[in-house]
């Protein structure tokens, strides 16, 4: 419920939190007549002025029958006395109860406010921690740079090894080819020499050599027979 008498944010000098409720209401004497009336009459008539005025008025109303005494007067008197007795006896208890309710409401609101403040403070601390973490960025990047350098190095060496093995394979191939060629040339030469030699052995020479062999064998057999 928005009170029309409490304008919010319309004046220039507006207080951000609402001004608190006044502690006590306006002073009222006998529960019916505000103090301002007594203060209003005090300069002219002193302290007893209003009472005199009240008595005079009452007597005037009664005598002129402006206020007529009837059965309702009796009823009003009884009701008033009961009300006054009730208020005098239980007034303070009711007031204490109402005050307690108010206290609880205020305490709840205060608790919510404190909760919010605490949450915000923890958020601030975490934010500060994050900022501190950000300072460690450098180390992180150094480590990453080292990793990358190592990867590059490893890759480079692998490729170097591949190059080396490939070149070695090609050179081995060349060496093998040369060896093979050498060997083939040798074999071919031997073969050719043997062929020529065999060809050069004419039938005449063959007969002579066979005869010589037979003679040698005979000589040998003779010497072997002699030996035995």
């Amino acid at each position, binding site marked *: 419920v928005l009170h029309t008498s409490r304008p919010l944010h319309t004046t220039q000098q507006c207080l951000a939190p609402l001004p608190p409720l006044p502690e006590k209401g306006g002073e009222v004497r006998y*529960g019916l007549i505000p103090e301002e009336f007594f203060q209003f009459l005090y300069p002219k008539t002193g302290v007893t002025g209003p009472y005199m005025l009240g008595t005079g008025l009452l007597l005037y109303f009664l005598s002129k029958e402006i206020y*007529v005494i009837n059965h309702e007067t009796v009823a009003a008197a009884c009701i008033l006395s009961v009300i006054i007795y009730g208020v005098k006896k239980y007034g303070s208890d009711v007031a204490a109860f109402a005050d307690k309710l108010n206290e609880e409401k205020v305490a709840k609101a205060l608790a919510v406010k404190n909760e919010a403040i605490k949450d915000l403070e923890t958020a601030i601390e975490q934010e500060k921690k994050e900022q501190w973490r950000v300072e460690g960025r450098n180390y992180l990047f150094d480590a990453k740079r080292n990793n990358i350098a190592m990867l590059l190095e490893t890759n480079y060496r692998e490729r170097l090894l591949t190059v080396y093995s490939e070149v070695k394979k090609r050179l081995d191939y060349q060496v093998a080819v040369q060896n093979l060629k050498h060997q083939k040339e040798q074999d071919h030469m031997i073969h050719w020499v043997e062929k020529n030699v065999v060809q050069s052995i004419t039938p005449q020479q063959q007969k002579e050599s066979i005869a010589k062999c037979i003679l040698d064998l005979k000589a040998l057999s003779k010497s072997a027979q002699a030996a035995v």
Partner: protein
Amino acid sequence: GPLAERRLMDVRLGELPAWLATCDLSPQGLLGGVRKAWSGYYDKYINVKRGGPAGISMLLAGYCLLSYVWNYQHISKISFLVSV
């Protein structure tokens, strides 16, 4: 201050008709006046942290008085008085 902006208690007796002339007597004006009076009364006697019986007792007394005034014609008739 000027006559139109003063409250009723600050107006002198001789200036009363002039002051009445300046105030806003249209329905909206009267309604605004009633609202201001009520909110003044409410903020002073009822909407406080530790009020007492004064807030509503004055309202009830005013209601009693008003109802007596409205029914005076009927109450003062002799037929009513005799019938207890």
